[in-house]
């Protein structure tokens, strides 16, 4: 059973503003019966450009109905400029929160609002149109949708993207592509807080950051001498990397450091493990990059 807040239950049992406004100024429709939820939002604008009435009709679960009801309450009285700034977070917060797996209901609300505003401005039909590349074919979710939700809600994992947009929750084939988008966003985020003098190129989407947690890259090697770098690398290997590798019966040895290339030799179980290269890149390199410089490269030396 879902852990709904009292406010969600209240808006589900006593939904506000149910119906459809005749001759509505703006109409927005998202979702479909196939997807399991669908929302039609209609609103009317007064002479001052404010939303004077908003109504909804929703096919969906309790949280979809409650989110729709909350949306209409939130936007009533708003100017379109204000309404445009409403995010799915505002809807979820209005309801005292939604279970993670149900966050897509709040996103559906925001999307319907967007579609209705566009429709009012004569930019689209009531039915929300997919813009750009469709990533999830099962639920019709585009790259733009995923980016917007990820950035607005600080999402970092594919699972979260599924909770918020449904993308990846059907056949699952697009999960890798979603991960790539997330990697890119994470890399951009990281770049965003780097200093202007930052000489190091940002991580490409293909490498590092694979676990989805955006880690600020603090590249401070410019002021480090080679010896300092050696000490730092040794410290990282000893305290963080070696214990983890030893759990899997492996070990590693620092062979040399040449500017930003760290040469290591894998030992024990790691040496014969076919995925040792992957282990190196994903785990060790990430740790080193996090601590020393985003352009640290790792080379394996076979002895």
């Amino acid at each position, binding site marked *: 059973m879902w852990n709904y807040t009292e406010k969600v239950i209240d808006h*589900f049992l006593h939904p506000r503003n149910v119906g459809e406004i005749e001759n509505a100024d703006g109409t927005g429709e998202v979702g479909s*019966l196939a997807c*399991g939820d669908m929302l039609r939002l209609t609103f009317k604008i007064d002479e001052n450009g404010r939303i004077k009435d908003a109504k909804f*009709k929703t*096919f969906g*679960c*309790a949280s*979809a109905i409650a989110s729709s009801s909350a949306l209409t309450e939130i936007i009533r009285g708003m100017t379109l400029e204000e309404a445009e700034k409403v995010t799915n977070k505002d809807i979820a917060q209005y309801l005292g929160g939604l279970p993670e*797996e149900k966050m897509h209901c709040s996103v559906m609300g925001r999307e319907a609002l967007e579609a209705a505003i566009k429709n009012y401005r004569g930019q689209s039909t009531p039915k929300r149109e997919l813009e750009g590349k469709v990533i999830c074919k099962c639920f019709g979710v585009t790259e733009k949708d995923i980016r917007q939700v990820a950035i607005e809600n600080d999402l970092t994992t594919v699972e979260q993207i599924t909770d918020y947009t449904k993308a990846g929750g*059907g056949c699952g084939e697009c999960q890798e592509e979603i991960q790539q988008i997330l990697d890119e966003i994470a890399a951009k985020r990281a770049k965003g807080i780097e200093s202007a003098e930052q000489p190091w190129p940002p991580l490409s989407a293909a490498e590092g950051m694979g676990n989805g947690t955006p880690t600020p890259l603090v590249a401070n090697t410019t002021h480090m001498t080679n010896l300092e770098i050696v000490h730092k690398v040794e410290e990282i290997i000893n305290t963080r990397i070696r214990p983890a590798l030893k759990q899997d019966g492996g070990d590693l040895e620092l062979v040399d450091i040449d500017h930003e290339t760290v040469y290591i030799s894998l030992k024990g179980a790691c040496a014969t493990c076919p995925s040792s290269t992957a282990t190196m890149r994903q785990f060790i390199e990430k740790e080193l990059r996090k601590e020393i410089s985003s352009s640290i490269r790792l080379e394996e030396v076979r002895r």
Partner: protein
Amino acid sequence: MKTIYVDNNATTQVAPEVIDAMLPFLRDMWGNPSSMHTFGGQVAKNIDKAREQVAALIGAERTSEIVFTSCGTESDNTAIRSQLLATPQKRHIITTKVEHPAVLNLCKEVAKEGYEVTFLPVDGEGRLDLEEFKRSIRDDTAIVSIMWANNETGVIFPIEEIATLCEQRNIPLHVDAVQAVGKIPINLSKTPITYLAISGHKLHAPKGVGALYVRRGTKFHPWLVGGHQEHGRRGGTENVASIVGLGVACELALANLDSEKNPIAMLRDRLEKGILESIPRAFVNGDKIMRLPNTTSISFESIEGEAILLLMNEYGICASSGSACTSGSLLPSHVLVAMGIPFTRAHGSIRFSLSRYNTGEDIDFILEKMPGIVSQLRKLSPVP
């Protein structure tokens, strides 16, 4: 508020007789049945009695064919894993698309280990095509695992015929009978089944106990390796009280199966008929003839299952849904999808599953409330 419980395919009320039979084994006779002393040893006799009661309900010829387990899922896993170990050279498994996750996900798991699995489809009424089943049998088929009755729709598969076909081809057959045992007559002395899984809490015994029937002469590999309990077929000190409870539950079920006109089926039929008559665009999912007497799955078009359940919950009515929102996934139930039920209906399916504890008043109350619930949600729906 009174609870109207029509979710008996999920779990059942423990029968009062079962609780009474169990209590002495929690309070006084708490010895270990493996012990040498009388205090412990006397308990073993009660486990033997429970074995007889389980064997009687399913028509097993020997009590030694019954192994007590912790649940239906353990029984399913034990049977399939045991058989795969017995014939490691055979790499093919046949099952259906509508199995319970205990079998379905296990088969997907062994597929990753290199087994080839045939997932048989069902038709729009949830029925298997026996010709297709025959065609899928191969020389390297290690095991066939097919449920006796479906938990969501109640549709009964022709296990007798499947068993005969398997016997002719000398292929072991595992039957997940968790939903069937105690609801329809089962006679394993006449039906050549190799393994059969039983769950206690689906037939008014407590949760945490199940049984696996293993036909005599079957090469068996225990799933839980440990002591010599259950004749070396399932390690771990016996869950004595629950095993005793399962025995009594089986005896009660057998007594209730004997009644000529099944009172549960009559209540179910009244409920189904009443809903179809009073609510437009309501549809029964699955074969209405070959079906468990206690189950009906009804889809209400253009509204969503979770919303229906939560409004029913406001009146104390407990049921289940095959909608995406209730499954925790984003897709409707795999059973309804396999049947090709349109999405407009699959998302709005409600399963009512009755037991002998339901009354005519329960049915009247549900029939009184359902039309209002459905029309309330339809008023909210953007799809007319």
